Protein backbone atom coordinates (compact mmCIF):
# COMPACT_ATOMS: atom_id res chain seq x y z
CA UNK A 1 0.00 0.00 0.00
CA UNK A 2 1.31 3.38 -0.96
CA UNK A 3 1.81 5.88 1.79
CA UNK A 4 -1.05 7.85 0.48
CA UNK A 5 -4.05 5.52 0.73
CA UNK A 6 -5.16 7.18 3.93
CA UNK A 7 -4.61 10.70 2.61
CA UNK A 8 -6.34 9.81 -0.66
CA UNK A 9 -9.39 8.64 1.25
CA UNK A 10 -9.29 11.80 3.34
CA UNK A 11 -9.10 13.92 0.17
CA UNK A 12 -11.97 11.97 -1.31
CA UNK A 13 -14.10 12.60 1.75
CA UNK A 14 -13.29 16.31 1.65
CA UNK A 15 -14.22 16.44 -2.04
CA UNK A 16 -17.56 14.79 -1.34
CA UNK A 17 -18.25 17.22 1.48
CA UNK A 18 -17.48 20.12 -0.85
CA UNK A 19 -19.74 18.82 -3.59
CA UNK A 20 -22.50 18.26 -1.05
CA UNK A 21 -22.02 21.77 0.25
CA UNK A 22 -24.50 23.99 -1.58
CA UNK A 23 -22.05 26.87 -1.80
CA UNK A 24 -19.72 25.10 -4.20
CA UNK A 25 -20.30 26.15 -7.79
CA UNK A 26 -21.34 23.60 -10.40
CA UNK A 27 -18.20 24.11 -12.46
CA UNK A 28 -16.07 23.52 -9.40
CA UNK A 29 -18.19 20.55 -8.39
CA UNK A 30 -17.61 18.93 -11.76
CA UNK A 31 -13.87 19.55 -11.44
CA UNK A 32 -13.95 18.11 -7.92
CA UNK A 33 -15.86 15.10 -9.18
CA UNK A 34 -13.22 14.47 -11.81
CA UNK A 35 -10.51 14.68 -9.17
CA UNK A 36 -12.53 12.38 -6.93
CA UNK A 37 -12.99 9.84 -9.69
CA UNK A 38 -9.22 9.75 -10.20
CA UNK A 39 -8.73 9.24 -6.45
CA UNK A 40 -11.26 6.41 -6.39
CA UNK A 41 -9.47 4.70 -9.25
CA UNK A 42 -6.10 5.12 -7.55
CA UNK A 43 -7.45 3.76 -4.27
CA UNK A 44 -8.97 0.77 -6.03
CA UNK A 45 -5.64 0.11 -7.70
CA UNK A 46 -3.83 0.37 -4.38
CA UNK A 47 -6.20 -2.13 -2.82
CA UNK A 48 -6.34 -4.63 -5.63
CA UNK A 49 -2.69 -4.49 -6.61
CA UNK A 50 -1.26 -4.65 -3.10
CA UNK A 51 1.33 -7.40 -2.79
CA UNK A 52 2.77 -9.21 0.15
CA UNK A 53 6.45 -8.54 0.47
CA UNK A 54 8.64 -10.15 3.05
CA UNK A 55 12.02 -8.90 4.15
CA UNK A 56 14.03 -10.17 7.06
CA UNK A 57 16.52 -8.10 8.99
CA UNK A 58 19.89 -9.53 9.83
CA UNK A 59 20.33 -10.44 13.45
CA UNK A 60 23.65 -8.74 13.89
CA UNK A 61 22.59 -5.34 12.68
Amino acid sequence: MEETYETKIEQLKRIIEKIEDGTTGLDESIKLYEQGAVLVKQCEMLLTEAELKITALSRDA
Partner: protein
Amino acid sequence: MDWFNRPDDIAAADRAPLRVSELSAIIERLLDSPLLRDILVRGEVTNYTHHARGHRYFSLSEKGGGNTAAVIKCVLWRSDAERLSFNLSEGLEVIVTGTVRLYAPHGSYQLQVKEMRKAGMGDKFLLVDQWKKELAAEGCFAAERKRPLPAFPIKVGVVTSETGAVIHDIRTVIGRRYPVEIVISPTVVQGEEAHREISCAIARLAGLVDVVIVARGGGSFEDLFPFNHPDVVRAITACPVPVISAIGHEVDVTLSDLAADVRAATPSAAAELVVPDRGVLLVQLKELKTQMSTALRGQVAWARDEIADMRDRLRPQRFCRKLEERKQNIADLSDRLERAFSNRVDRERLLLAEIKTALDGRNPLAVLARGYCVAEKNGVVVRSAKNINQGDRMKVRFYDGSSQVTVERVDYGRNV
Protein backbone atom coordinates in the same frame (compact mmCIF):
# COMPACT_ATOMS: atom_id res chain seq x y z
CA MET B 1 -23.45 -25.52 98.24
CA ASP B 2 -26.22 -25.74 95.70
CA TRP B 3 -24.69 -27.46 92.76
CA PHE B 4 -27.70 -26.88 90.59
CA ASN B 5 -28.16 -23.16 91.06
CA ARG B 6 -24.78 -21.64 90.51
CA PRO B 7 -24.91 -17.91 89.63
CA ASP B 8 -23.26 -18.54 86.24
CA ASP B 9 -25.94 -20.94 85.25
CA ILE B 10 -28.64 -18.49 86.17
CA ALA B 11 -26.99 -15.88 84.00
CA ALA B 12 -26.68 -18.34 81.10
CA ALA B 13 -30.33 -19.24 81.43
CA ASP B 14 -31.21 -15.54 81.18
CA ARG B 15 -29.36 -15.11 77.88
CA ALA B 16 -31.38 -16.02 74.79
CA PRO B 17 -29.74 -18.79 72.81
CA LEU B 18 -28.15 -17.78 69.53
CA ARG B 19 -29.53 -19.16 66.33
CA VAL B 20 -26.99 -21.06 64.30
CA SER B 21 -27.14 -18.49 61.53
CA GLU B 22 -26.38 -15.75 64.05
CA LEU B 23 -23.37 -17.70 65.25
CA SER B 24 -22.27 -18.15 61.64
CA ALA B 25 -22.57 -14.42 61.08
CA ILE B 26 -20.34 -13.74 64.10
CA ILE B 27 -17.72 -16.18 62.84
CA GLU B 28 -17.94 -14.69 59.36
CA ARG B 29 -17.28 -11.25 60.83
CA LEU B 30 -14.29 -12.58 62.74
CA LEU B 31 -12.89 -14.14 59.59
CA ASP B 32 -13.24 -10.88 57.67
CA SER B 33 -9.74 -9.82 58.53
CA PRO B 34 -6.89 -8.38 56.45
CA LEU B 35 -4.78 -11.25 57.78
CA LEU B 36 -6.96 -13.67 55.83
CA ARG B 37 -7.60 -11.57 52.72
CA ASP B 38 -5.60 -11.95 49.45
CA ILE B 39 -3.03 -14.12 51.10
CA LEU B 40 -0.42 -16.32 49.47
CA VAL B 41 -0.48 -19.93 50.70
CA ARG B 42 1.75 -22.77 49.72
CA GLY B 43 0.70 -26.40 49.97
CA GLU B 44 0.03 -29.68 48.30
CA VAL B 45 -3.20 -30.30 46.39
CA THR B 46 -5.24 -33.15 47.90
CA ASN B 47 -8.84 -34.36 47.61
CA TYR B 48 -9.02 -32.72 44.19
CA THR B 49 -12.38 -32.81 42.40
CA HIS B 50 -13.33 -31.13 39.15
CA HIS B 51 -17.00 -30.28 39.55
CA ALA B 52 -19.32 -30.73 36.58
CA ARG B 53 -20.03 -26.99 36.61
CA GLY B 54 -16.34 -26.26 36.22
CA HIS B 55 -15.58 -25.29 39.80
CA ARG B 56 -12.58 -27.00 41.38
CA TYR B 57 -12.62 -28.27 44.94
CA PHE B 58 -9.52 -29.43 46.73
CA SER B 59 -7.57 -29.15 49.95
CA LEU B 60 -4.20 -27.63 50.53
CA SER B 61 -2.21 -29.82 52.86
CA GLU B 62 1.03 -29.50 54.59
CA LYS B 63 2.53 -32.86 55.40
CA GLY B 64 4.89 -33.21 58.18
CA GLY B 65 5.26 -34.62 61.56
CA GLY B 66 3.57 -33.39 64.66
CA ASN B 67 2.27 -29.87 64.84
CA THR B 68 3.06 -28.96 61.25
CA ALA B 69 0.44 -31.25 59.71
CA ALA B 70 -2.44 -29.06 58.56
CA VAL B 71 -5.11 -28.88 55.90
CA ILE B 72 -7.48 -26.25 54.56
CA LYS B 73 -10.38 -26.71 52.19
CA CYS B 74 -10.14 -24.69 48.97
CA VAL B 75 -12.47 -23.76 46.16
CA LEU B 76 -11.52 -22.34 42.75
CA TRP B 77 -14.52 -20.96 40.87
CA ARG B 78 -14.89 -21.80 37.22
CA SER B 79 -14.15 -18.25 36.00
CA ASP B 80 -10.81 -18.32 37.83
CA ALA B 81 -10.12 -21.96 36.96
CA GLU B 82 -10.36 -21.12 33.24
CA ARG B 83 -7.39 -18.80 33.56
CA LEU B 84 -5.14 -21.58 34.87
CA SER B 85 -2.22 -22.20 32.58
CA PHE B 86 -1.65 -25.77 33.87
CA ASN B 87 -3.74 -28.75 34.81
CA LEU B 88 -4.49 -29.15 38.46
CA SER B 89 -3.76 -32.58 39.78
CA GLU B 90 -3.48 -34.46 43.00
CA GLY B 91 -0.22 -34.04 44.82
CA LEU B 92 0.84 -30.89 42.98
CA GLU B 93 2.77 -28.40 45.07
CA VAL B 94 1.22 -25.00 44.47
CA ILE B 95 1.18 -21.42 45.66
CA VAL B 96 -2.29 -19.92 45.70
CA THR B 97 -3.67 -16.44 46.24
CA GLY B 98 -7.03 -16.27 47.97
CA THR B 99 -9.24 -15.20 50.84
CA VAL B 100 -10.51 -17.28 53.76
CA ARG B 101 -14.30 -17.30 54.03
CA LEU B 102 -16.85 -19.15 56.05
CA TYR B 103 -19.08 -21.51 54.13
CA ALA B 104 -22.07 -21.49 56.48
CA PRO B 105 -24.07 -24.41 54.93
CA HIS B 106 -21.19 -26.75 55.73
CA GLY B 107 -20.12 -25.05 58.90
CA SER B 108 -16.60 -24.88 57.61
CA TYR B 109 -14.15 -22.26 56.53
CA GLN B 110 -12.46 -22.47 53.15
CA LEU B 111 -9.92 -20.67 51.07
CA GLN B 112 -11.46 -19.09 47.98
CA VAL B 113 -8.62 -19.25 45.50
CA LYS B 114 -8.29 -16.55 42.82
CA GLU B 115 -4.88 -17.38 41.33
CA MET B 116 -2.68 -20.38 41.44
CA ARG B 117 0.74 -21.39 40.21
CA LYS B 118 3.12 -24.25 40.55
CA ALA B 119 5.33 -23.87 43.59
CA GLY B 120 8.49 -24.81 41.74
CA MET B 121 8.28 -21.53 39.88
CA GLY B 122 7.93 -19.54 43.02
CA ASP B 123 11.10 -17.53 42.73
CA LYS B 124 10.46 -16.51 39.16
CA PHE B 125 6.91 -15.48 39.99
CA LEU B 126 8.21 -13.33 42.77
CA LEU B 127 10.71 -11.81 40.38
CA VAL B 128 7.98 -11.01 37.88
CA ASP B 129 5.94 -9.39 40.64
CA GLN B 130 8.89 -7.30 41.60
CA TRP B 131 9.60 -6.27 37.98
CA LYS B 132 5.96 -5.48 37.52
CA LYS B 133 6.05 -3.04 40.43
CA GLU B 134 9.25 -1.39 39.21
CA LEU B 135 8.08 -1.07 35.63
CA ALA B 136 4.68 0.20 36.73
CA ALA B 137 6.47 2.86 38.75
CA GLU B 138 8.35 3.83 35.57
CA GLY B 139 4.99 4.27 33.87
CA CYS B 140 5.54 1.43 31.42
CA PHE B 141 1.96 0.17 31.76
CA ALA B 142 0.25 3.55 31.97
CA ALA B 143 -2.96 3.70 29.96
CA GLU B 144 -2.19 7.25 28.78
CA ARG B 145 0.95 6.17 26.92
CA LYS B 146 -0.95 3.64 24.81
CA ARG B 147 -0.87 4.74 21.17
CA PRO B 148 -3.50 4.06 18.56
CA LEU B 149 -2.50 1.74 15.72
CA PRO B 150 -1.98 3.33 12.30
CA ALA B 151 -5.02 2.79 10.08
CA PHE B 152 -3.00 1.93 6.96
CA PRO B 153 0.51 0.77 7.80
CA ILE B 154 2.87 0.42 4.84
CA LYS B 155 5.42 -1.72 6.62
CA VAL B 156 4.71 -4.04 9.49
CA GLY B 157 7.58 -5.16 11.69
CA VAL B 158 7.34 -8.61 13.25
CA VAL B 159 9.57 -9.61 16.13
CA THR B 160 9.44 -13.37 16.41
CA SER B 161 11.18 -16.56 15.48
CA GLU B 162 11.77 -16.68 11.73
CA THR B 163 10.61 -20.26 11.62
CA GLY B 164 7.47 -21.75 13.00
CA ALA B 165 3.76 -21.23 12.98
CA VAL B 166 3.71 -17.67 14.32
CA ILE B 167 5.29 -15.94 11.34
CA HIS B 168 3.38 -18.23 9.01
CA ASP B 169 0.07 -17.28 10.61
CA ILE B 170 0.88 -13.59 10.49
CA ARG B 171 1.91 -13.78 6.83
CA THR B 172 -1.22 -15.68 5.93
CA VAL B 173 -3.59 -13.30 7.66
CA ILE B 174 -1.90 -10.14 6.39
CA GLY B 175 -1.73 -11.61 2.89
CA ARG B 176 -5.43 -12.38 2.97
CA ARG B 177 -6.62 -9.10 4.50
CA TYR B 178 -4.30 -6.54 3.00
CA PRO B 179 -0.89 -7.49 1.65
CA VAL B 180 1.80 -5.10 2.87
CA GLU B 181 5.51 -5.32 3.41
CA ILE B 182 6.39 -7.45 6.41
CA VAL B 183 9.78 -6.78 7.93
CA ILE B 184 10.81 -9.73 10.08
CA SER B 185 13.18 -8.96 12.87
CA PRO B 186 14.15 -12.49 13.85
CA THR B 187 14.95 -13.49 17.38
CA VAL B 188 14.98 -16.49 19.63
CA VAL B 189 11.89 -16.41 21.79
CA GLN B 190 12.91 -18.51 24.74
CA GLY B 191 15.94 -19.32 26.79
CA GLU B 192 18.23 -17.63 29.24
CA GLU B 193 19.47 -14.94 26.85
CA ALA B 194 16.30 -14.52 24.86
CA HIS B 195 15.36 -11.22 26.49
CA ARG B 196 18.50 -9.59 25.09
CA GLU B 197 17.80 -10.76 21.56
CA ILE B 198 14.15 -9.84 21.75
CA SER B 199 14.83 -6.32 22.95
CA CYS B 200 17.50 -5.86 20.24
CA ALA B 201 15.10 -7.21 17.62
CA ILE B 202 12.50 -4.65 18.68
CA ALA B 203 15.03 -1.80 18.71
CA ARG B 204 16.32 -2.80 15.27
CA LEU B 205 12.93 -2.03 13.71
CA ALA B 206 12.96 1.60 14.82
CA GLY B 207 12.49 3.88 11.83
CA LEU B 208 11.89 1.01 9.42
CA VAL B 209 8.24 0.21 10.02
CA ASP B 210 4.93 1.82 10.96
CA VAL B 211 3.87 -0.70 13.55
CA VAL B 212 5.46 -3.66 15.34
CA ILE B 213 4.06 -7.04 16.29
CA VAL B 214 5.91 -8.88 19.06
CA ALA B 215 4.69 -12.46 18.88
CA ARG B 216 5.32 -15.87 20.30
CA GLY B 217 3.33 -19.07 20.28
CA GLY B 218 1.92 -20.66 23.38
CA GLY B 219 4.21 -22.13 25.99
CA SER B 220 4.76 -22.63 29.67
CA PHE B 221 5.35 -19.83 32.11
CA GLU B 222 9.03 -20.68 31.80
CA ASP B 223 8.88 -20.45 28.01
CA LEU B 224 7.23 -17.05 28.08
CA PHE B 225 9.48 -15.77 30.85
CA PRO B 226 11.76 -13.62 28.62
CA PHE B 227 8.73 -11.51 27.73
CA ASN B 228 8.47 -10.50 31.38
CA HIS B 229 12.02 -9.21 31.40
CA PRO B 230 12.40 -5.44 31.94
CA ASP B 231 14.74 -5.22 28.91
CA VAL B 232 11.94 -6.40 26.63
CA VAL B 233 9.29 -4.28 28.37
CA ARG B 234 11.46 -1.18 28.09
CA ALA B 235 12.25 -1.93 24.44
CA ILE B 236 8.49 -2.02 23.80
CA THR B 237 7.84 1.27 25.54
CA ALA B 238 10.85 2.85 23.80
CA CYS B 239 9.64 1.69 20.37
CA PRO B 240 8.84 4.82 18.32
CA VAL B 241 5.82 3.18 16.67
CA PRO B 242 2.90 1.35 18.27
CA VAL B 243 3.48 -2.23 19.39
CA ILE B 244 0.99 -5.09 19.33
CA SER B 245 1.79 -8.02 21.58
CA ALA B 246 0.66 -11.58 20.93
CA ILE B 247 2.54 -13.72 23.39
CA GLY B 248 1.41 -17.19 24.36
CA HIS B 249 -2.25 -17.94 24.75
CA GLU B 250 -4.94 -15.56 25.84
CA VAL B 251 -4.66 -16.75 29.47
CA ASP B 252 -0.95 -15.95 29.65
CA VAL B 253 -0.37 -12.30 30.36
CA THR B 254 3.26 -11.24 30.31
CA LEU B 255 4.63 -7.86 31.29
CA SER B 256 5.26 -7.28 27.58
CA ASP B 257 1.53 -7.63 27.00
CA LEU B 258 0.88 -5.01 29.67
CA ALA B 259 3.40 -2.63 28.12
CA ALA B 260 2.26 -3.08 24.52
CA ASP B 261 -0.04 -0.49 23.00
CA VAL B 262 -2.47 -3.22 22.03
CA ARG B 263 -2.63 -6.81 23.21
CA ALA B 264 -3.82 -9.48 20.84
CA ALA B 265 -4.95 -12.93 21.95
CA THR B 266 -2.98 -14.72 19.24
CA PRO B 267 -0.50 -13.89 16.46
CA SER B 268 -3.34 -14.23 13.91
CA ALA B 269 -5.44 -11.80 15.93
CA ALA B 270 -2.48 -9.39 15.95
CA ALA B 271 -2.26 -9.64 12.17
CA GLU B 272 -5.95 -8.89 11.91
CA LEU B 273 -5.56 -5.84 14.11
CA VAL B 274 -2.56 -4.51 12.24
CA VAL B 275 -4.00 -4.21 8.72
CA PRO B 276 -7.48 -3.36 7.54
CA ASP B 277 -9.48 -5.82 5.48
CA ARG B 278 -9.26 -4.63 1.90
CA GLY B 279 -12.59 -6.27 1.09
CA VAL B 280 -14.19 -3.93 3.61
CA LEU B 281 -12.14 -1.03 2.25
CA LEU B 282 -13.32 -1.72 -1.30
CA VAL B 283 -16.91 -1.68 -0.11
CA GLN B 284 -16.30 1.62 1.68
CA LEU B 285 -14.63 3.03 -1.41
CA LYS B 286 -17.61 2.02 -3.49
CA GLU B 287 -19.89 3.77 -1.02
CA LEU B 288 -17.79 6.93 -1.25
CA LYS B 289 -17.95 6.72 -5.03
CA THR B 290 -21.73 6.44 -4.95
CA GLN B 291 -21.96 9.24 -2.45
CA MET B 292 -19.86 11.47 -4.69
CA SER B 293 -21.96 10.72 -7.78
CA THR B 294 -25.14 11.35 -5.84
CA ALA B 295 -23.75 14.64 -4.59
CA LEU B 296 -22.83 15.79 -8.09
CA ARG B 297 -26.14 14.65 -9.55
CA GLY B 298 -27.86 16.63 -6.82
CA GLN B 299 -25.83 19.69 -7.76
CA VAL B 300 -26.66 19.30 -11.45
CA ALA B 301 -30.36 18.85 -10.70
CA TRP B 302 -30.27 21.92 -8.55
CA ALA B 303 -28.51 23.92 -11.24
CA ARG B 304 -31.05 22.74 -13.81
CA ASP B 305 -33.90 23.87 -11.59
CA GLU B 306 -32.22 27.19 -11.18
CA ILE B 307 -31.84 27.62 -14.93
CA ALA B 308 -35.48 26.71 -15.49
CA ASP B 309 -36.48 29.23 -12.90
CA MET B 310 -34.37 31.93 -14.51
CA ARG B 311 -35.69 31.12 -17.95
CA ASP B 312 -39.20 31.55 -16.61
CA ARG B 313 -38.29 34.86 -15.15
CA LEU B 314 -36.55 35.93 -18.33
CA ARG B 315 -39.44 35.03 -20.70
CA PRO B 316 -40.38 38.41 -22.48
CA GLN B 317 -44.16 38.41 -22.05
CA ARG B 318 -44.26 41.83 -20.54
CA PHE B 319 -41.82 43.09 -23.07
CA CYS B 320 -43.94 41.74 -25.92
CA ARG B 321 -47.03 43.33 -24.47
CA LYS B 322 -45.26 46.66 -24.39
CA LEU B 323 -44.16 46.21 -27.96
CA GLU B 324 -47.74 45.47 -29.04
CA GLU B 325 -48.95 48.55 -27.25
CA ARG B 326 -46.43 50.68 -29.08
CA LYS B 327 -47.32 49.16 -32.41
CA GLN B 328 -50.97 49.90 -31.76
CA ASN B 329 -50.06 53.43 -30.86
CA ILE B 330 -48.12 53.91 -34.03
CA ALA B 331 -50.99 52.54 -36.10
CA ASP B 332 -53.44 54.88 -34.40
CA LEU B 333 -51.21 57.84 -34.93
CA SER B 334 -50.65 56.97 -38.53
CA ASP B 335 -54.42 56.69 -39.06
CA ARG B 336 -54.97 60.02 -37.45
CA LEU B 337 -52.22 61.53 -39.49
CA GLU B 338 -53.65 60.22 -42.71
CA ARG B 339 -57.15 61.33 -41.88
CA ALA B 340 -56.02 64.76 -40.82
CA PHE B 341 -53.96 65.13 -43.92
CA SER B 342 -56.68 64.07 -46.35
CA ASN B 343 -59.21 66.37 -44.62
CA ARG B 344 -56.80 69.17 -44.96
CA VAL B 345 -56.16 68.42 -48.62
CA ASP B 346 -59.88 68.32 -49.32
CA ARG B 347 -60.39 71.65 -47.63
CA GLU B 348 -57.50 73.19 -49.47
CA ARG B 349 -58.88 71.85 -52.70
CA LEU B 350 -62.25 73.55 -52.03
CA LEU B 351 -60.55 76.76 -51.11
CA LEU B 352 -58.49 76.57 -54.22
CA ALA B 353 -61.63 76.04 -56.34
CA GLU B 354 -63.23 79.08 -54.78
CA ILE B 355 -60.15 81.13 -55.31
CA LYS B 356 -59.99 79.92 -58.85
CA THR B 357 -63.60 80.94 -59.42
CA ALA B 358 -62.94 84.32 -57.88
CA LEU B 359 -59.83 84.64 -59.90
CA ASP B 360 -61.63 83.71 -63.05
CA GLY B 361 -64.22 86.43 -62.33
CA ARG B 362 -61.48 88.95 -62.12
CA ASN B 363 -59.54 87.92 -65.11
CA PRO B 364 -58.93 91.11 -67.08
CA LEU B 365 -58.76 89.12 -70.26
CA ALA B 366 -62.38 88.05 -69.68
CA VAL B 367 -63.43 91.72 -69.55
CA LEU B 368 -61.39 92.39 -72.65
CA ALA B 369 -63.07 89.47 -74.34
CA ARG B 370 -66.36 91.23 -73.86
CA GLY B 371 -65.02 94.07 -76.02
CA TYR B 372 -63.34 96.30 -73.50
CA CYS B 373 -59.83 97.71 -73.83
CA VAL B 374 -57.33 98.76 -71.23
CA ALA B 375 -55.18 101.77 -71.77
CA GLU B 376 -51.80 101.94 -70.20
CA LYS B 377 -49.51 104.91 -70.09
CA ASN B 378 -45.95 104.23 -69.20
CA GLY B 379 -46.95 100.74 -67.95
CA VAL B 380 -49.64 102.11 -65.66
CA VAL B 381 -53.35 101.48 -66.27
CA VAL B 382 -55.09 104.69 -67.10
CA ARG B 383 -58.22 104.87 -64.97
CA SER B 384 -59.15 108.51 -65.60
CA ALA B 385 -59.20 110.88 -68.49
CA LYS B 386 -57.60 113.39 -66.21
CA ASN B 387 -54.42 111.36 -66.35
CA ILE B 388 -53.89 111.85 -70.01
CA ASN B 389 -53.10 114.68 -72.20
CA GLN B 390 -53.15 115.34 -75.86
CA GLY B 391 -50.23 113.80 -77.58
CA ASP B 392 -49.62 111.10 -74.92
CA ARG B 393 -48.59 107.81 -76.18
CA MET B 394 -50.50 104.86 -74.74
CA LYS B 395 -50.75 101.22 -75.10
CA VAL B 396 -54.22 99.87 -75.71
CA ARG B 397 -54.64 96.27 -74.82
CA PHE B 398 -57.30 94.11 -76.43
CA TYR B 399 -58.20 90.62 -75.49
CA ASP B 400 -56.20 89.26 -78.38
CA GLY B 401 -53.47 91.87 -78.73
CA SER B 402 -52.51 95.48 -78.25
CA SER B 403 -51.83 98.63 -80.14
CA GLN B 404 -49.79 101.79 -79.68
CA VAL B 405 -51.91 104.93 -79.90
CA THR B 406 -51.46 108.64 -79.63
CA VAL B 407 -54.07 110.75 -77.85
CA GLU B 408 -55.53 113.34 -80.25
CA ARG B 409 -57.97 114.90 -77.88
CA VAL B 410 -59.17 114.53 -74.36
CA ASP B 411 -62.88 114.92 -73.57
CA TYR B 412 -64.07 114.94 -70.03
CA GLY B 413 -67.50 113.51 -69.45
CA ARG B 414 -69.50 111.96 -66.72
CA ASN B 415 -69.88 108.65 -68.39
CA VAL B 416 -67.63 107.35 -70.93
